[in-house]
C-alpha cells in the first residue's frame, strides 16, 4: 500500500528540510489512512460478490460434468440415436439431438445474420431521422421479448392462422426472432468502433458510401461481427421455450425441416427429466453436458476470432 508510506516517517529523506515531507499541514496522513480502509473494504465487498456469483456457476458445472460427463466418453454417444432404446436400457446416443440442435442453429443463423447485419448497417451507416429511431426502438422491443412469447407468436401464426403442422422450420422462425436483436446490437457496436476517419478516407477517394461500407467498414469490423454472431448463436441454441411449443422430441434422426419432428438437445433433456430409471437419468445429464460443451465451443470460437482476427489500427 503506497498510501501508508506517506504517513510514516521511514522515508530516506524524511529529515531533510527541503524534502516535501508529509507534515506540511495538508492532512495528507489522515486522508490516506481513511482511503486505505475504504479501499480494503471495497475490495472485500467485491471479492465476496464475485464468490457469491461463482458458487452457482461452479455448482452447475460440477453436477453436470460429474453426472453426465461419463456419457460423452462413450463413442456411441456421438454416433447413435435413441431409436428403439427404452428408458430401462443402457446405450444409444445423442447424435439425433446434436444434429437437430446444430441444424436448427445453422438455419437460424443463415436467416437471422443477414437480416441482423443489414439492419445494423442501416442504423449505423445510413439511418437518420424518424425511421432509424423507429427501427432502433423495434429492435429494443424485440430484445426484450421473452422466448416463450416469440414461440407462442410463431405458433399462433404457423399453426393457428395458417393451419400448418408443427415442424422444425417453425422452431427456426421463433429462434430467428430471438437471434435478430442480438445480432443487430452486437454488429451495431462493432460498426461504431470503426473510426470515422476510415469512412472519410474512403469518401475522399471518391468511393461511394455503399462501397465504403462493403469494402472498408465491414472488413474492419468483420471479426467483431463474427464474434457477436457466434455468441448470439450460442444463446439461441440453448433456447428451450420455442422447442417445447413448436418442436416436440423424437428418438429418431431427422433432417427434414419442413416435415415431421426434429429432436434437439434441450427437448431430449426435457423428455426424460421426470424419469427415475438410471439409464434415462444418465442420458439427461449426458445431453445437458453435451449442450454446455457445444455452447462452450461456440463461445470459445467467438473469443478466439475476436482475439486473432482484429485488424491492427
Amino acid at each position, binding site marked *: 500500500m503506497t498510501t501508508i508510506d506517506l504517513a510514516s516517517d521511514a522515508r530516506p529523506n524524511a529529515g531533510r528540510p527541503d524534502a516535501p515531507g508529509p507534515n506540511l499541514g495538508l492532512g495528507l496522513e489522515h486522508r490516506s489512512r481513511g482511503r486505505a480502509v475504504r479501499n480494503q473494504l471495497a475490495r472485500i465487498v467485491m471479492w465476496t460478490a464475485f464468490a457469491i456469483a461463482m458458487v452457482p456457476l461452479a455448482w452447475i458445472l460440477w453436477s453436470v460434468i460429474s453426472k453426465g460427463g461419463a456419457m460423452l466418453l462413450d463413442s456411441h454417444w456421438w454416433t447413435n440415436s435413441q431409436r428403439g432404446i427404452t428408458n430401462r436400457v443402457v446405450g444409444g446416443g445423442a447424435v439425433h439431438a446434436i444434429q437437430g440442435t446444430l441444424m436448427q442453429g445453422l438455419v437460424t443463423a443463415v436467416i437471422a445474420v443477414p437480416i441482423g447485419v443489414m439492419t445494423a448497417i442501416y442504423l449505423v451507416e445510413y439511418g437518420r431521422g424518424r425511421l432509424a429511431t423507429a427501427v432502433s426502438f423495434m429492435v429494443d422491443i424485440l430484445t426484450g421479448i421473452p422466448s416463450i412469447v416469440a414461440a407462442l407468436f410463431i405458433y399462433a401464426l404457423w399453426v393457428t392462422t395458417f393451419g400448418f403442422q408443427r415442424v422444425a422450420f417453425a422452431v427456426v422462425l421463433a429462434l430467428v426472432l430471438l437471434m435478430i436483436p442480438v445480432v443487430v446490437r452486437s454488429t451495431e457496436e462493432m460498426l461504431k468502433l470503426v473510426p470515422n*476517419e*476510415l469512412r*472519410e*478516407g474512403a469518401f*475522399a*477517394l471518391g*468511393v*461511394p458510401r455503399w462501397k465504403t461500407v462493403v469494402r*472498408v467498414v465491414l472488413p474492419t469490423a468483420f471479426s467483431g461481427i463474427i464474434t457477436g454472431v457466434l455468441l448470439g448463436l450460442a444463446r439461441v441454441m440453448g433456447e428451450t421455450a420455442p422447442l417445447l411449443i413448436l418442436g416436440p422430441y423424437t428418438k429418431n434422426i431427422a433432417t427434414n425441416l419442413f416435415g415431421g419432428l426434429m429432436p434437439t438437445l434441450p427437448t431430449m433433456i426435457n423428455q426424460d427429466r421426470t424419469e427415475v430409471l438410471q439409464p434415462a437419468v444418465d442420458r439427461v445429464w449426458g445431453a445437458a453436458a453435451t449442450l454446455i460443451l457445444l455452447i462452450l465451443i461456440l463461445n470459445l470460437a467467438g473469443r478466439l476470432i475476436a482475439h486473432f482476427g482484429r485488424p491492427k489500427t
Partner: protein
Amino acid sequence: MAKRIDVKNLNAYYGTFRAVEDVTMTIEPRSVTALIGPSGCGKSTFIRTLNRMHEVIPGARVEGSVHLDDADIYAANVDPVGVRRTVGMVFQRPNPFPTMSIADNVVAGLRLNGLKNKTVLAEAVEASLRAANLWNEVKDRLNKPGAGLSGGQQQRLCIARAIAVEPQVLLMDEPCSALDPISTLAIEDLITELKSRYTIVIVTHNMQQAARVSDRTGFFNLVETGQPGRLIEMDDTHKIFSNPSIRATEDYISGRFG
C-alpha cells in the same frame, strides 16, 4: 491537369450554426495555398467544402459556389462522389485502411472504383509511392499491413493513396501536425515537388511551414467563439509574412494574438 479553384460568397453551416461566413477566394493552378488562423476559425470546415466532404456530416450544408475551372461543383447535377475523385484530400491523422496491405492501400481508390487490371494497379502502386517519396522505404514489404508503418510513413502512404486516383487538386488539413520534424520536412519537400502537377491547398498551424511551402497564404479569423470564421486577408505568402495589410494578420503571425 491542375485546376483553378474559384470560391464565391461561400457560407458553411453545421445545422443552424454558421462556421464559415462569406469566403471569396481564387486559388491558382500549380500553386500551394496555405490557410492559417486560430483554432476554431473554420479552416477545416472551409477546406472540406472544396471537395464536398463537408456535407457528409449530418446537418451540414453549404451556400455559395465553388468552381473548378468552369464547372460549379455545387451545381444540382454534380455527383459529390465524382468531385472527390477530382479533388483529393489528406487528413490530419494518417488513416490507412487497417485491413489492407501497403500496396492495397495505395490503390484502394482505384480498386474500389472498379479497376481490376493487375499490371495497371502494380504500376500505379510504384508510381504513387515514388511520387510520395515512400517507394524506397516500403518496396520490400508492399504486402505488409499499412498500419505497421511509422506515423510519417503512414501519412506519406495516405498522400500516395490520394494521388493514385490522379486528382487535380490536393487538399491537406494539417498533414504534419501528428509528425516529427524529420517527417514534416519530408512531407514539405513532397509538397514542393507535387506543386508542379497539382493545385495544393494546405491548412497549417505552423507559420514557418506556411512560409516555407506556400505561394499564397490566406488568414482566417473569427471575432469570438460562437461567431463564424471569415477570410481576413489573402495575399502572396512573402507579402503576408513581411508586410500584411491588416492589423489582425500581423498580430497573428507575429504571435501577438489575443
